[in-house]
């Protein structure tokens, strides 16, 4: 009986460690999008919502002074330039390009 219980605990612990490890291996990268025409927090809200709908995107922030929209996304997420160009065109802005940064800012 005791052996069975010990076995169950061991298996549970092993699964927990596996999940923890699996999570740790999903890296998130930051992609900075250069966008022209953004001048206030209210103006950029709709763009943030659209970007958050993209698979793999976990958070979106903005740096108005530098004209950047910072996207945090899973490592395997690809943001296509043509798609982004159209997305920002529909928002009333001009997409200039993107730059990948190693890790997401906390």
């Amino acid at each position, binding site marked *: 009986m005791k052996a069975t219980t010990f076995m169950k605990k061991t298996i549970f612990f092993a699964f927990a460690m596996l999940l923890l490890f699996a999570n740790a291996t999903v890296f998130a990268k930051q992609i900075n999008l250069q966008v*022209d*025409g*953004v*001048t*206030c*927090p*209210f*103006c*950029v*809200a*709709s*763009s*943030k919502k*659209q970007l958050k709908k993209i698979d793999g995107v976990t958070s979106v*922030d*903005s*740096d*108005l*002074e*530098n*004209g950047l929209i910072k996207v945090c996304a899973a490592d395997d997420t690809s943001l296509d330039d043509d798609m982004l160009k159209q997305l920002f*065109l*529909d*928002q*009333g*802005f*001009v997409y200039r390009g993107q730059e990948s940064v190693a890790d997401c800012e906390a």
Partner: protein
Amino acid sequence: MNLYRALILCALLSIGIQANAAPITTSSATPIAKGQFIARTEVIRQHADTESIEFFRDSAAATLIYGISRKWAAFVTNTYKQGRLNDQNRVRRNQGFSDTNVFARYTAYQSNHLGKTLRIAPYLGTQIPTGRENVSDEFGRLPVGLQTGHGAYNPFAGITLTYATIDWRFDTQLRYQSNNFEIDDEWRFDSSLQYRVLPKVLTGDSNAFVNAVLEFNYINHGRDQMSGRNTGNSSTLFIAPGLQYIQSNFIAEASLQVPVNTELAPGMLEQEYIARVGVRFNF
């Protein structure tokens, strides 16, 4: 006061009231994204008077904006009005929903650069007579200014220009409205300067602004043609200082609009002030 004079006063009163329908910072060429909704509500208190007449109106205005495409946006506005006129010993009141303004705006030109944008957008619309223009009380038909509607489809058109940076922005518009109900046409020219006062220095995580706002509204009405009399043009220049708190999902704002120069036909009510508190959401 005889009936004729009362009617003339009421018509003039309505000119003065309409002259203050300029909402703070609404008329702009600000981008509305395709598929985006913006809702705006405002609570407005206005006071106008002459030596013997006093007028108060409290209003709650609602505007819904929708981005049809990257260049086209549709606007619908209606207001619930509650007016009171103290005319010597008489107090007259009315309340109800106003006429509905429906219009479309087209972004004809835009130039975007890092942290700045220039946009020009003409618009065209009409006032739909959803309000009532023939309400009476024990003293007879209410004056035009106390009615909630105008009883006619009144077309209007305008053009707006916006130049915005992350530090300040300037909006201006020229607008013309044809009025088919007792009062002649209206021309107006509005300008608004908004300057970011907080945060003084932007950082990467600056997600809320406080803007100081200063607006000017010049409004000119054609002559009053009621009863075939010509009362002459009237014009008023308003100044409206205000404040805005801007976040990504909403803008809260307040302003006080006061006349600085008024040329009114005899007997016309003069605006004392218009106070506004409002909020806008995007969703």
